[in-house]
């Protein structure tokens, strides 16, 4: 016993220490994190963000230097707060709040005190900064917009918020990230790679040189420049035409799917979202809940397409073989179905074949075609499913998959939807119950870019490329492969000729005959879409949306366009005019019909938009 006591204690001690070491070194990893935090400082070297050009090499977005006042809270020494606040031109209360917030974020990592100083402010401040320990000025690169348009396309860059930091640990407080538009979509291309320097610190938090002789350090890599498919001239012209109007234009080059113009109105100057006034301006745009300038109508707006949709109804009819180009359909002021129910039509000559039906936008003709397409199958469900399949092949009823970060799927109703609405199989429903779909009303909703896309598909006689905004990523000289893959629709190409002919006739003698452009063969289709809103909870009809789709030239389409003017009344009134002007501008490079241009530039729909907010009864479609 006496021999064994010390020996036992020695052995037990060995076991206890082994256990303790296991706990410290293997089991509890929090010590490893603590070590990384207190021994190594990470310094980032920010690269220049890539430039953005238009399709013709015109510079749209460059960079300008900017200076942020930063703070590392735990390094702050007592200071003359009043003097410092005066220097920074902020109140003592704000200063305390900013500092408290920075401390909450991290006592060790830098936070922004004052973002984006001007050069003048920087020059003045930089002389005095030495007095304030823990504060320093960091140079940063901000966007410098060379144009005043395309804010919706370009997007903007802003400081990351705590949510983004949580999602993506690559970012740190005060760093910038692309928001919306191509800035967001091509963030990783544009931002480049930030350089990292690891600095070994000692216990007094002093730098004692690079960590491991800098083997982990990296150099910053400049962001890559990109070219957009946007035609800067056309885009600017589009915005000008939309002055005092709401809506938008999407122009696509049918042969490539490249977006030539993507205009949404009202719009704003992208420079508003740069600099110290950024957040004030943003708030102003954000809270404009009536005009909604931040709402991209051409990407996010889901509207009933109206008559342009009839081209698709005709194509489906031909593909399904339930109508041919020669058959004529009589129209007695509308389409009568069921027990005396009637879908009205405007005045035109009757009867009409397909080409005439499109040119004159006859409701009766397309209701007939639509009904036959559905009723071709034993049940309306099967017919509806076939119909839906055709439309989806045009990129409708789902996200189009463009390289712009916002978008909406639109809506192509399915059999399941009607089963639900009409409580099938308890009750039955037939093609006639969904007849409004024939003419692009009813349950059908499209975004303007979807309309431009199906117009391009018609121009191409049955195929399209996914619309995209990226023309080229410099140095890499490639774009994502999804935008170079041809997509076939379910409609055979021989069926497109009569539709194109009808659209051409709409310009020759039909609904858009007064919008002809000398020397250019245009194919178009007007649309006048009924729409409703809720005023004080009551469903109220508003003035129709003015819709127009077109492509030109007829035989070698260079541009396919969809124009949408909210509450613009009939199709050729506003949308047709804007489309006509933009096609001329793009193809000819100049406008010959200056009267028409003047009319559009001076035209305003503000009075129309004010009506629902007036609080008084109002008349529509005046």
């Amino acid at each position: 016993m006496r021999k064994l006591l010390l020996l036992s204690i020695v052995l037990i001690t060995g076991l206890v220490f082994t256990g303790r070491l296991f706990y410290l070194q293997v089991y509890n990893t929090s010590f490893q994190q603590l070590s990384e935090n207190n021994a190594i400082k990470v310094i980032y070297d920010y690269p220049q963000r890539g430039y953005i050009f238009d399709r013709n090499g015109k510079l749209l977005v460059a960079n300008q230097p900017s200076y942020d006042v930063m703070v590392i809270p735990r390094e702050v020494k007592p200071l003359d707060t009043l003097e410092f606040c005066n220097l920074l031109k902020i109140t003592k209360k704000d200063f305390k709040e900013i500092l408290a917030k920075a401390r909450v974020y991290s006592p060790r990592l830098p936070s922004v005190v004052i973002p984006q100083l001007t050069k003048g402010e920087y020059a003045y401040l930089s002389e005095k900064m030495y007095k304030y320990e823990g504060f320093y000025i960091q140079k940063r690169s901000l966007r410098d917009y060379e144009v005043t348009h395309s804010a919706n396309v370009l997007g903007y860059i802003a400081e990351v918020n705590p949510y983004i930091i949580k999602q993506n640990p690559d970012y740190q407080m005060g760093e910038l990230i692309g928001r919306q538009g191509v800035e967001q979509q091509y963030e990783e291309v544009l931002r480049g790679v930030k350089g990292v320097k690891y600095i070994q610190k000692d216990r007094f938090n002093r730098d004692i040189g690079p960590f491991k002789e800098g083997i982990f350090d990296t150099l910053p890599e400049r962001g890559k420049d990109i070219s957009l498919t946007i035609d800067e001239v056309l885009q600017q012209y589009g915005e000008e035409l939309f002055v005092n109007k709401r809506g938008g234009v999407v122009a696509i080059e049918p042969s490539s799917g490249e977006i030539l113009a993507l205009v949404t109105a009202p719009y704003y100057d992208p420079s508003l979202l740069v600099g110290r006034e950024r957040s004030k301006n943003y708030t102003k745009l954000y809270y404009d809940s009536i005009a909604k300038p931040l709402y991209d109508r051409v990407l996010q707006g889901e509207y009933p397409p109206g008559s342009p949709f009839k081209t698709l109804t005709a194509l489906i009819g031909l593909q399904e073989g339930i109508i041919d180009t020669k058959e004529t359909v009589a129209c007695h002021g509308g389409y009568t179905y069921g027990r005396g129910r009637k879908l009205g039509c405007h005045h035109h000559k009757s009867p009409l074949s397909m080409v005439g039906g499109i040119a004159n936008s006859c409701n009766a003709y397309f209701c007939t075609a639509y009904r036959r397409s559905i009723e071709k199958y034993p049940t309306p469900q099967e017919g509806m499913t076939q119909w839906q399949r055709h439309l989806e092949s045009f990129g409708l009823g789902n996200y189009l998959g463009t390289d712009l970060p916002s978008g909406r799927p639109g809506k192509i109703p399915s059999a399941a939807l009607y089963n639900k609405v009409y409580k099938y199989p308890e009750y039955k429903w037939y093609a006639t119950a969904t007849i409004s779909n024939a003419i692009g009303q009813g349950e059908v909703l499209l975004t303007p870019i979807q309309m431009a896309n199906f117009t391009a598909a018609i121009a191409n006689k049955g195929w399209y490329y996914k619309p995209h905004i990226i023309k080229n990523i410099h140095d890499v000289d490639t774009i994502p492969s999804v935008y170079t893959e041809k997509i076939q629709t379910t409609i055979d190409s021989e069926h497109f000729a009569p539709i194109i002919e009808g659209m051409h006739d709409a310009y020759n003698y039909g609904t858009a005959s007064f919008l002809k452009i000398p020397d250019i063969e245009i194919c178009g289709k007007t649309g006048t879409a009924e729409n409703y809103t809720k005023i004080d909870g009551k469903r109220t009809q508003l003035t129709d949306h003015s819709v127009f789709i077109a492509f030109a030239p007829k035989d070698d389409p260079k541009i396919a366009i969809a124009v949408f003017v909210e509450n613009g009344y009939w199709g050729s009134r506003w949308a047709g005019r804007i489309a006509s002007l933009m096609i001329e501008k793009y193809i000819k490079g100049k406008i010959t019909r200056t009267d028409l241009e003047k009319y559009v530039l001076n035209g305003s729909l503000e009075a129309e938009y004010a009506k629902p907010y007036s609080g008084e009864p109002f008349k529509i479609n005046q």
Partner: protein
Amino acid sequence: MAVGTSKVRFDWLTIFFYAALVGIGWVNIYSASLSDASAGYFDLTQIYGRQLLFIILSVVLIIFILAVDAKFYERFSSIIYIVSVASLIGLFIFGKNINGATSWYSFGNFGIQPSEFAKAATALALSKYVSDIQTNMQEIKHQLRAFIIIALPALIIIPQPDPGSALIYAAFVFPLYREGLHFVYLLLGFFAAALFVSTLAIGVPWVIAGVLLITGFTYFKNRKRRPRVINYAAIALACIAFAFSVNYIFNNVFEQRHRDRFNIVLGKEIDTKGIGYNTNQSEIAIGNGGWFGKGWTQGTQTKGNFVPEQHTDYIFSTVGEEWGFVGSVLVIALFIALITRILFLAERQKNQFSRVYGYSVAAILFFHFFVNIGMVTGLFPTVGIPLPFFSYGGSGLWGFTILVFIFVRLDASNFVHS
């Protein structure tokens, strides 16, 4: 029996463990004290360079110790002890104050710390006394004399002040127990320590309640044997008096730095920037090692000098960070192996003097190891004592070298007898 006769055989295993620990120790001191101004391993302006010199001088010392006849150590133990105690007393007159403690004789750039050598001297003197044919450890008179031999250097060291070094003298209770000291003394020591800690941890009222409960319960259990109430009352009273005196000493005799150190370990204060900084940084450094460590001279905590006194008392945190769990356990295993080897050899000794001395060596090494690693890994309060063979310092290294190699010499001659 002189060196050179073929029958002298040293225990090479002990020598191997010693050499391994000293070697690994130096490798870690090198890493902990590496700076930009380094010019080779043998740079005397650098800590690791000086330690290398100390190690080389140790080899000379070892040859000298092993060359001397084993009988010398037994015969001259009293004189060695007296010289050692005198050198401790001399500190009060000639000593040099370094870091607040007057524990050094200064010779130019080098200092000698006599308390490091006093351990070996005390071990020799105690062995000599205990192995005397007339000494009987069952007798109070002899116990008292042995106690005086141990306590004399400790009492001189405490007011220097160096309570950490003085604490080590408690290790001698183990050889005394081996030689017949009653187990009660160990128990008393253990209970005193337990009472001490619990008084500080939970406060006097709870300790009183606990003491009364336990004595009451044991009395109740043994009541059939008709115990005398007075005995139980006396024990309880003694415990309570002890608790009160601990409380008094803690609050009135201890300095604030001592109080802080105890409070941190007892979890009463969590203050990682102040006094708990050492322990906290040491734990971070060790934890940073993970399974296999950061690699030699690659420890970020070590490089940043986050752990104070890392080349001396906290040298084990470098082992932990740079060699990881695997390396740390290897070092622990080497220490355990050396101590158990010495214990094994001590039991093998033919004469009592060698056995008592061997036990003393093992107990002293163990106490240093136990208190130091316990402190560095945050298990015990911060008590500034070095890790044998590892911590930087000539006196410390030589002190332990003398301690171990006198035993190696004694063991070698013992072998010849057989």
